[in-house]
């Protein structure tokens, strides 16, 4: 177990319980929550665990601020989506599209890295912002190819469709449909990539990244070419984001600018990393889960609250479901205020690692 986690234990009983609960709930989600919204939420959490963990490799471990992460997410989404749309609903399209997207993503990350990781952090951030904006405009302008602002809906391979049944009989009262299979592909990939990321940050390579984050010059004085390490982690994070984008397209059976390239997603990722705790990876799991659950269920919770407080002056107006974004904002400001080192940072005790 510890070796699966690469020796990087959560180092707090509370955190261990929370993480284990998230793992169990995600693993059992199709059985525990039969509704479509619950499964959609669980699937989105799986996708975002990959996306946020890969972003944490950049910002939390290497200290690289990039705004191009959703671009790589989009490349994955469009790669798989357009392949399925253009080449037909086969597995060859899925893997072919993903391979092309991975190739393009890694080449772009390499190019951005080599050209701009030598410059100061703020310039790198600006360059990624410019490249990502250009890519988003390109995706919406090439409407004949990408479907423009409307995006593309496509069919997935037969085994992943809701009508497909893996077994004749239900298992534990649940039909194992193509949708359930897709969910488990997402879940297994998210788990595998998360463990891979843990391995990376706990390897000597990870130590160099942390050293670079703390002091570039000192790391160079030890003989490490920091630009090489920064470029490598940039490519790795991009590749993980591409996979997350591909999985998201498989789940939604749709790809478009709003679900992949939007700057709002970039801000969500940033918030999830900060709320969870930068440079901890476990923070990515907790941040993504908390954020997405709040995004999906806060409105419902507020409707229940507003109904229950009917008759009391002012309160039902304050917690009216229409004001859910206000409360989401307050929730985030509060969490950053009370947990400046993120939730994981708050619960981790100081002491030997």
């Amino acid at each position, binding site marked *: 177990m510890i070796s699966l986690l690469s020796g990087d234990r959560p180092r707090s009983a509370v955190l261990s319980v929370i993480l284990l609960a998230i793992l169990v709930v995600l693993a059992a989600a199709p059985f525990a929550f039969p509704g479509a919204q619950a499964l959609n939420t669980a699937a989105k959490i799986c996708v975002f665990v990959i996306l946020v963990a890969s972003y944490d490799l950049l910002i939390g471990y290497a200290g690289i601020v990039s705004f191009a992460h959703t671009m790589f997410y989009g490349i994955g989404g469009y790669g798989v989506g357009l392949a399925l749309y253009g080449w037909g609903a086969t597995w060859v399209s899925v893997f072919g599209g993903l391979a092309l997207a991975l190739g393009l993503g890694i080449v772009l990350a390499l190019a951005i890295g080599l050209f701009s990781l030598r410059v100061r952090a703020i310039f790198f951030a600006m360059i990624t912002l410019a490249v990502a904006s250009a890519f988003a405009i390109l995706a919406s302008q090439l409407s004949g190819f990408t479907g423009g602002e409307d995006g593309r809906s496509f069919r997935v391979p037969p085994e992943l469709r809701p009508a497909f049944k893996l077994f004749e009989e239900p298992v534990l009262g649940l039909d194992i449909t193509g949708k359930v299979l897709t969910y488990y592909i997402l879940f297994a990939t998210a788990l595998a990539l998360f463990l891979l990321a843990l391995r990376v940050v706990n390897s000597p390579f990870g130590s160099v990244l942390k*050293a670079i984050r703390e002091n570039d010059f000192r790391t160079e004085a030890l003989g490490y070419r920091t630009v090489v390490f920064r470029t490598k982690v940039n490519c790795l994070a991009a590749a993980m984001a591409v996979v997350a984008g591909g999985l998201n397209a498989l789940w939604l059976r749709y790809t478009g600018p709003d679900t992949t390239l939007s700057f709002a997603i970039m801000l969500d990722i940033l918030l999830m990393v900060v709320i969870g705790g930068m440079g901890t990876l476990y923070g990515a799991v907790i941040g993504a889960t908390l954020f997405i659950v709040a995004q999906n269920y806060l409105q419902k919770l507020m409707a229940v609250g507003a109904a229950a407080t009917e008759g009391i002056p002012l309160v039902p107006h304050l917690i009216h479901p229409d004001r859910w974004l206000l409360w989401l904002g307050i929730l985030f400001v509060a969490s950053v205020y009370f947990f400046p080192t993120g939730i994981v940072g708050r619960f981790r005790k100081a002491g030997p690692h």
Partner: protein
Amino acid sequence: MTADLVRLEGVHTHIGQYHILQGVDLVVPEGELTVLLGRNGAGKTTCLRTIMGLWQPSAGRLTWRGREIGGWATPDIARLGIAYVPESMGIFADLTVAENMVLAARAGRPDPRRLDWIFGFFPALRKFWDFPAGVLSGGQKQMLSIARAVIEPRDLILVDEPTKGIAPAIIEAMIGAFRELKRGGTTILLVEQNFRFAASLGDGVAVMDDGRIVHAGRMADLAADAALQTRLLGLSLDQHQ
């Protein structure tokens, strides 16, 4: 006659608009401990940083075993077998002591025998092995910084004022470590203000003032010549003794 490991000939270094090194001529002979003395602001630290490639020389020749290395990138200079112990200790506070050490051992896992040898001088490092280096005291951080530089055999170690603000007991351990390193054939260039510490270790000595070397010779000669000490080092150094 020992060969020159590092040689600076008429080296100038500018930091922004400031002209810090103004034609430094310095020879670091192989296998010796050379001490660089001088008042604050004389350019000693800039001299070390220029050798390390952290500042680029604007004129002059900087050679390593006769090969020009002026203008090289810092990682390439480090890979020649040069370790740098900066005045600010240069450790990574977020990383554990173990990670700091492993990071410095570029050849892979640190040699356990060498680690034991290091722990012999600096036992606190064994005690805090799995702790973040940020929790160490100032003296322990300095131990870690030196230990990191010697985790693997190096040809040259540049050390910048290791005794500054450090307790006497740790200074004694440092003297022992430097002596052993010298015996093992490591060349050391030491910037120091503590003359007694410097005199107990140094083979050669160079004194800097206003970005130039104003005296170069044997440490034993300088240590024996009080008049020369007063002329070169003035009163300011006595306060540090």
